[in-house]
């Protein structure tokens, strides 16, 4: 559930990822791995909600950590973020979708159903990356 504190809004604002291209090793769009890009797609959002939806989970986490910091002190969000980082590392092989069960349990979204569970479920995605290339990319060999 949302936990919002008014005072947390006064803290320094946190930068939020926009539609900037996924830069490859040379700072430009990596066409081989991510496909062709178009300037218009990166500069303007195609829908007013696109940016806010893309960053929704990020913003929620940041707000919650800010409130937690104001209530319990700096140690609380630090410990939690350490646990999040550990839970985020539990993944399947690179080309398979993972359930993120540990991360969900930590966040409290394991008993919450939203549109992300009903629409565009990544488990039912029709596209899959080539296993060899994905593993090589993950290991940095490619």
């Amino acid at each position, binding site marked *: 559930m949302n936990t919002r504190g008014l005072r947390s809004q006064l803290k320094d604002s946190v930068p939020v990822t926009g539609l900037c291209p996924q830069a490859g090793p040379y700072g430009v769009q990596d066409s081989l*791995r*991510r496909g062709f890009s178009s300037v218009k797609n990166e500069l303007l959002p*195609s829908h007013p*909600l696109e940016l806010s939806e893309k960053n929704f989970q990020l913003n929620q986490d940041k707000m919650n950590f800010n409130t937690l910091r104001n209530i319990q002190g700096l140690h609380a969000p630090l410990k939690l973020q350490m646990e999040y980082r550990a839970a985020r590392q539990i993944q399947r092989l690179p080309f398979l979708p993972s359930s993120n069960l540990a991360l969900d349990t930590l966040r409290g979204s394991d*008993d919450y159903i939203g549109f992300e569970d009903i629409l565009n479920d990544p488990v039912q*995605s029709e596209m899959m990356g080539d296993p060899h290339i*994905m593993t090589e*990319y993950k290991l940095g060999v490619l």
Partner: protein
Amino acid sequence: MATVSVCQYHPGGFSFENCKRNALLEADITKLGFSSPAARKTGTTICGVVYKDGVVLGADTRATEGMVVADKNCSKIHYISPNIYCCGAGTAADTEMTTQIISSNLELHALSTGRLPRVATANRMLKQMLFRYQGYIGAALVLGGVDCAGPHLYSIYPHGSTDKLPYVTMGSGSLAAMAVFEDRYRPNMEEEEAKHLVRDAIAAGIFNDLGSGSNIDLCVITKGKVDYLRPHDVANKKGVREDNIDGRPVTGSYRYKHGTTGVLTKVVIPLNLEVVEESVHTMDTS
């Protein structure tokens, strides 16, 4: 076409990939003079009233698609939990999916707390979800139920604002229904009086608003009991076609009755035919 070799998994939820394409198509289509298909809406009259022992929710049953009636008997009172029901106006798919999601979440929440869910919880969940989508989910809801703290009634607007009131109306026929409420509402009514008031308010919406029509559904929620009356009142009965006149089917029959034209003379000439040749052709069934 080049294929992407490294596939990033999308997190799920709404996908905005086709928005630019749709905007271009929309512009092209309007240039040609056509219009893109309209979403099915429930141009509606929904209302609710708090009475002595609980809550009465009422709704009409017409669903429209532009200027055409898409469904003459749709159900607009949705189940949220055993003691909470929700009427929905606006885009039909949005109200359906939103109420189903909130119903599931409330069930999980109730299992986690071990208590009967409260109406304020459902209200908070709905308003947070609708505000997140900034009004793009077109669902205007009337949420009512009875929990441990008594009967509650909320109205929830598509952008996420809510009002907690003793009587509320929503939808295109809300003004007609509100007029009836403002005239005849009084606190702590009896059940029959409350049901009659809601029925009259919905009927006012049905007869004075083009977007509402057909029957009146009622839902009476009290502590421990829910009466889902569907239909409570068939205000608009569809006419019945005359099927039979004097034993003859009338629909689409152009035959005249025997004896319509008087017979003056009758001449019968028998034709004697001889069978000359008889042959049987077998059908090719291979």
